[in-house]
């Protein structure tokens, strides 16, 4: 039985009598090829992605330090259940992957009076595991701003990261230039991300 040159689809030899088996063989081969392509295309069109939004202010503190986001709800998380109280974790079945990640962080003043010029940092803590050594490390990505006393501050942080068994945590950090205000991640802040692809080995 000959086969087509590109996809190996079977067809009856020119000197053979046509048989129902020939039609079956062709249909089965097309079926397998089509399933393979459609599955891959659908997966490529729906990469792992998430949009989480905080529904309560995060933990607060005094002085400088890291204050994580509060309780989150998933506006979009088709991988189901990968959001936690303080961020998002990568599906464990994924290999080493590139992600575009971002956060839209609102600051809330939880105590004291904010002083103009207070140093504010928006931050993404990105945890990843070395696939070979098994060691875990945290890399942080920042954007800075200042208190302006105009009804609440906000900072966006963006990064393209490489993660394996990773986790993404949105964080705020602050330093008072005067006064004694304390800040936290405000309700309504978002963390989001999308898998860009597999890291070539």
């Amino acid at each position, binding site marked *: 039985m000959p086969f087509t040159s590109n996809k190996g689809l079977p067809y009856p030899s020119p000197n053979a009598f046509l048989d129902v088996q020939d039609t079956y063989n062709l249909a089965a081969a097309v079926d397998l090829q089509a399933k393979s392509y459609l599955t891959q295309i659908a997966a490529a069109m729906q990469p792992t*992605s998430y949009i989480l939004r905080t529904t309560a202010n995060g933990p607060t503190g005094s002085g400088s330090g890291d204050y994580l986001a509060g309780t989150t709800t998933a506006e979009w998380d088709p991988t189901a259940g990968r959001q936690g109280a303080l961020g998002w974790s990568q599906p464990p079945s994924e290999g080493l992957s590139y992600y575009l990640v971002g956060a839209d962080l609102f600051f809330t003043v939880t105590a004291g009076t904010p002083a103009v010029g207070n140093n504010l940092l928006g931050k993404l803590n990105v945890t990843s595991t070395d696939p070979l050594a098994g060691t875990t490390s945290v890399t942080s990505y920042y954007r800075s701003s200042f208190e302006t006393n105009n009804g609440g501050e906000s900072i966006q942080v963006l990064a393209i990261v490489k993660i394996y068994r990773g986790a993404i945590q949105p964080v705020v950090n602050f330093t008072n230039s005067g006064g004694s205000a304390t800040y936290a991640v405000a309700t309504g802040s978002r963390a989001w991300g999308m898998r860009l692809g597999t890291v070539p080995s």
Partner: protein
Amino acid sequence: MTGLTPWERIRYPQAGEVISATAEQATATDMDVVLESAVPLYQQAVGRTVGIFSAGSPSITKATLTTVSFTSGTAPFWVVGSPTRITPTIPGIYLIQASVGLNYTSTSNMFRIMIARNGGTAAPDVQIQTTPQWDTNATIIVANMVSMWKFATGDFYELKVFWNGTPAGPQTLDTPRVSLIPLMYT
């Protein structure tokens, strides 16, 4: 004709049947349907339309949250009759990027840009970038932001801006640009 392939349900004649033109036509028709089903996916993969929207140099009153009217934009997301609105057409996940400058000639300013959903002015319908400015020699503050949204049919997005500081104003915007990038369709 009762045989069906396991995945895409292509009909085929079974052993013992007399092969016929009708049976061959059914098999070919099913193969055709399977191939055709890949076309929308293919079109989404290669044919996504990115929208770009711009405005001139509108004057913005001090300490007043202002919705920007775009003067040009990519169809079908923007129409002249609704100049403030960016409206995706296919439910999905979208990135919306904004880059906007504010012209000013004094110090102690701040400039805030906001992508707002459905006319909202507060969370959860906004994503915001606030940019303070302390340099007395600068003549412009530029704010830049990227936001990610889950768009549902009927939603629309707008660019809102806010500034405050020592000059009385109003101050003009400099090169407001917004882009809409579909990431995936849901």
